Each structure stands twice: as C-alpha cells, then as structure tokens.
C-alpha cells in the first residue's frame, strides 16, 4: 500500500530503473574508489538539502535565498553540543532541528505578518543568513572566523552513533537521508497539508477563498524546510569536521542548495535528486577537464556553470526532470492519469 502510494504515476520502466539504480548505489562502495564515493556522498547531500528547499519553494511557493542559515545553525549547533556536552549528532538533531524550524518560522512569521512577499521575502532570507554569518565570525566560543574544528577520532572503527568513521559510513548515511527525504516529500504532497501548499503556490487568493489559512500553512512549509535543512547541516559538520562561517552561512551556499531543484525541476519530487546528479558531476567534470587541458585560470569552471544555468533556464525553464521523465517513459504524463487509473481498476 505504502509503496503503491510512493510510486504512484511511475511507469513499470521507471520503477525498474529506480530499483536498479538504487541497487547499484547500495553495492557501489564495494568496488568504487574513495574519490567516487566522496562525489556520490556530495550528490546525496545536495539531493537532500535541495529536497528540503523544494518543500518551501517548490511546494508552497515561498522563495528562500537564505537556506545556508539553517545549514550553518544546524552544523554549528550539533558541533557545539558534541564538543561541549559530548552529545552525539543524532541527539544533537533533536535539539537543532526544532530550533532551526522555529528560527525559520520566526523569520517567516515576521515577514508574512508585515506583508513582505515575493522578492522582498527572498531578500529578507538573504539578510538573515548574512547577518548570522557576520555574527558567527565574532562568536569566539565557536571559533569565530577562524573556524570550528571537530576532533577527528581515528582507529575506533565505524561509529554510527557518533557519526565518526570511514567514507563508506558517510556514504550510506547520506544515501539513507536522501531516500528518506524523497519518500517524505512524496508522501507529504499527497496529504491535506500538501494539497494546501500546492494551492497556495498556484494562487494564494483562490487558496484563501477555499478556506486555507495562508499564514499557518506557509509557516508549516518554512518550518519543515528549515528543520530538514538543519539535518543536512549536522551531517556537513560531522562529515567535514570543520565549520567556517564564510563557508556554511555564505550566500553562495544558499544558491548551491537551490540550483539542484531548479535545474532538476522545481516542485517535483525527483527534480532535486536529478539536479544534484547533474550539477555535482558537472562541476567536478569541468574541474577535471580544465585540469587535463592545462587551463588553470581561476573562474573558468564558474563561467561554464553560469553558461549552463542560462541555457537550462532558457530552454528547460520547468527543469529537466518533467521533460526527461515523460520523454524516457519513466512517469505517466500529467493529463493522462485517467488512463492509469482505469488500468489499475481492471
């Protein structure tokens, strides 16, 4: 029943490809080298946080350009709890996830209450993230601008509880997190709240006329999105073992987070995953290629990146996934769902 819900609208071919891909990912660490594993871990991370951002923008239609705030708060929060109180990351999450959800909802509440919307709301999210970034530069207890370093404990083997261990451990943890986020989003879009979000995204006035309390529904989207992102921040802290305000809170990180879902397909559940699968290797591939060609000019990679963005938004503005999924026969095209339902009834 649950899997049937999860795969609603997916063709047999789509299901098969997904299962095969997942199987390959599960077995891959047996054969892959550490470089490949690190790239895939990064892809999973971006798929995960992209999914989180997509909850707010893709489902509820609220543009955030400051999601680095929740990565940073989540990471710093869990790291501080670990270093000062000896609490592991999973326990830390119990603290930082609600905190970030509340911070997000507070920003949302302030903004929405005062009628700040659209681009102005996006600027408010940037301002809050940047404000916090500069503030963290000056919190000496957390290392300030010099950075916070988590102790690397070697030789104790893999410790899932404390999230200390080999690249394979991080690979599997991040894979599971990304899958959970995928499933969560898939389920939530089919709930009452999920439909209210979609209605809000499509037309707020019409949504209100149908009895949807806009403020509450918006805040729930921001809260879930921020809370999910915080988990990504915790993983970041324990994976890289160092945190610099200029890196985790930077606007560049906020943008990195939202590129995946936009390129992949905003408002779709698999879009953020596809976006991460395209962008991360693209960035890495460009680096390798430029290295091979002996081009060492700084900025070349970003120029290629920028060109890609312009091309994608010009030619596939709804993202690559909606187009690809139909083209490759992975999902039932929208508008033909009645055919599917008839097929199921037989």
């Amino acid at each position, binding site marked *: 029943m649950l899997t049937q819900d999860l795969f609603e609208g997916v063709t047999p071919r789509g299901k098969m490809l997904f299962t095969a891909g997942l199987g390959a990912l599960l077995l891959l660490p047996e054969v892959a080298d550490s470089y490949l594993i690190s790239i895939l871990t990064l892809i999973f991370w971006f798929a995960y946080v992209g999914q989180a951002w997509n909850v707010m923008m893709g489902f509820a239609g609220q543009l955030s350009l400051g999601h680095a705030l929740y990565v940073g708060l989540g990471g710093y929060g869990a790291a501080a709890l670990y270093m000062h109180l000896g609490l592991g990351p999973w326990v830390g999450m119990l603290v930082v996830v609600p905190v970030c959800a509340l911070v997000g909802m507070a920003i949302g509440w302030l903004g929405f209450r005062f009628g700040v919307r659209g681009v102005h709301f996006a600027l408010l999210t940037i*301002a809050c993230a940047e404000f916090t970034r500069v503030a963290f530069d000056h919190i000496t207890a957390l290392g300030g601008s010099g950075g916070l370093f988590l102790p690397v404990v070697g030789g104790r083997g893999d410790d899932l509880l404390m999230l200390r261990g080999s690249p394979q451990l991080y690979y599997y943890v991040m894979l599971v997190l990304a899958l959970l986020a995928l499933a969560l989003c898939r389920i939530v879009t089919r709930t009452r709240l999920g439909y209210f979000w979609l209605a809000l995204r499509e037309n707020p006035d019409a949504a209100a006329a149908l009895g949807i309390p806009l403020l509450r529904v918006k805040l729930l989207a921001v809260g879930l999105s921020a809370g999910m992102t915080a988990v990504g921040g915790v993983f970041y802290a324990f994976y890289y073992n160092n945190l610099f305000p200029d890196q985790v809170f930077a606007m560049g990180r906020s943008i990195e987070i939202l590129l995946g879902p936009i390129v992949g397909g905003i408002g779709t559940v698999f879009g953020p995953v596809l976006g991460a699968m395209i962008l991360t290797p693209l960035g890495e591939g460009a680096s390798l290629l430029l290295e091979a060609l002996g081009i060492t000019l700084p900025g070349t990679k970003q120029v290629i990146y920028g060109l890609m963005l312009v091309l994608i938004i010009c030619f596939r503005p709804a993202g690559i996934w909606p187009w690809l999924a139909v083209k490759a026969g992975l999902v039932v095209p929208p508008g033909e769902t009645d055919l599917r339902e008839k097929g199921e009834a037989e």
Partner: protein
Amino acid sequence: MSLSLYAGTLSSGILTGLVYGLAAMGLSVIFGVVRLVNFAHGEMMVLGMFAAVVLAAAWGIDPLLSALPVAALLFVAGYGLQRGLLNRFIDRPDHQQFILLLGIAMILVNGLMMVFGPDARSTNVPYGFDAFFVGGITLDKTRVYAAGGALIVAAALYAFFRFSRTGIAIRACADNQLGAAVVGLDVKGLYAITFGIGSAVVGIAGCLLSLVIDVRPQLAADYTLLSFIIVIVGGLGSMGGALLGGVLIGVSEALAGVLIDPSRKQMVSYGLLILVLLVRPQGLLGKRG
C-alpha cells in the same frame, strides 16, 4: 576619539554613500520599470570598475573621464541583454528570472576573474593622496570627486525621467504597461532602454568608486547585496530614496568601522535592512503600494 575625527568619518561616509546611492538608483530604475530584480547588478558595477582600471593603466585616463565611455559600453550591453534575452523573461516567475540573472552574474564576475585574476587593483590617480581641508575636517579629493560625479549623474538621471520624451514614456510604461502598449508605446524597446540606462548608471558608479577602493572581482556579490539593501531601505522606485539610503548605509558603515569593529560593519547594513523590511517595507521614502 576627537570630534573632528567623527566629523571626518561622517563626511567620508556621506561621500561614499552618495556613490552607493547612484549604483542603487540604477537597480531601482530597472526594478521600477521592468519589474526585474537585477541580481547581476554588482557584477555590472565591478565591470565598470575594471574598465576604469584598464583605461587608467593603459592610457592614464582619469576614471572621472572614463565614466563616459564606460557608460556607453554598459548601456549597449544592458540594452542588448534586455532586447536579446531578458524581454523573453518578463512574464516568467521570479525564480526563473533570478536563475537567469544569476547565470549572467556568474559569467560576468568569473570572466573578469579569468582575465584579471583575484588580486586587488587600483586606478592610481595622481591626486590619490591629496585632500581638501574644510574647517578642520579632512576630505579625500578622490572621495569628493566621486561624490560630485555621483550627484551630477543623479541629477541628469532625474532630469531625463522628468523632462525628456523617452523618460516620460518610460515612466508611463512603469505606471501602466498595458496602457502604454495601448497608446502605441514600444514597451519592450523602452524596457531595453531602461535596462541600458540602469546598467550605464551602475557602470558609472563603478568608475567613480574605483577612485576610492581597491578593485577585485570578488566584490561583485557584496555590491549586489549592498544595492538591494539601499533600494529597500530608501524605498523602491524613489530616486531620492536611493540617494538617502546610500548615504545612510555609507555613514553607518563608516561609523561602525570606527565605533564597533570594521569586520562587523556589514552586520549594521543587514540589520538595517531587516528592520526596514519589517517595520516599513515600502522603504523610507517609498509610497505604500
């Protein structure tokens, strides 16, 4: 700290702020008319700065003079960009416009990075270390000239929108796009001119600022944000508001640099932005929509 030092800090903040205000005016004009948030604004500004640096290094042209060719160059670039690409995105959702301009911004700033590298450069004008002394206050010559230039351009911009046929047509477009189209105005053409003007203005602001600061490509994103802050603080669509917002940010940065800690000066700007967004979202001089 002595009073004259305060006065000096204050006045240099005002002078720099006027140039910031000019840059923000470019953003405000584009947003007010084309309803497009130019996320590549700081990048265009840095483009202007590098043009000034190159002209100064190659032929010793004063940035005050190179403002003219730079303005022409950026007008053409902005006009072409709006005509060729942005006009097609006018009715697209916010996030698509954002991605497009973000892509353009990345190409611009990293293109500069490829050509000039990440190191700081300056225009090295002969009067770089000269100063005016007014009633015990020391004013850097470069800063005074830059602020004067900004005021002149701002006045010209105001006159253009107030008195010229094209300027009035553009304002009509901003008030009522459909109405403007109905009476036979070429709306998309006017959009292109507006984006050209906005780009030229920020290019000039870049030239002027290159007198005062060391130029690096990495500054671009900061100036984009700075322009946003000023426009929001001053009030969208208000030209006076942009100048006022610029001065306010310039002064608060300068004062924060002396009073608190230079590295925290950005916090003051962002704090101001958050405050204005929440308390007076239409900006200080903006009208409630």
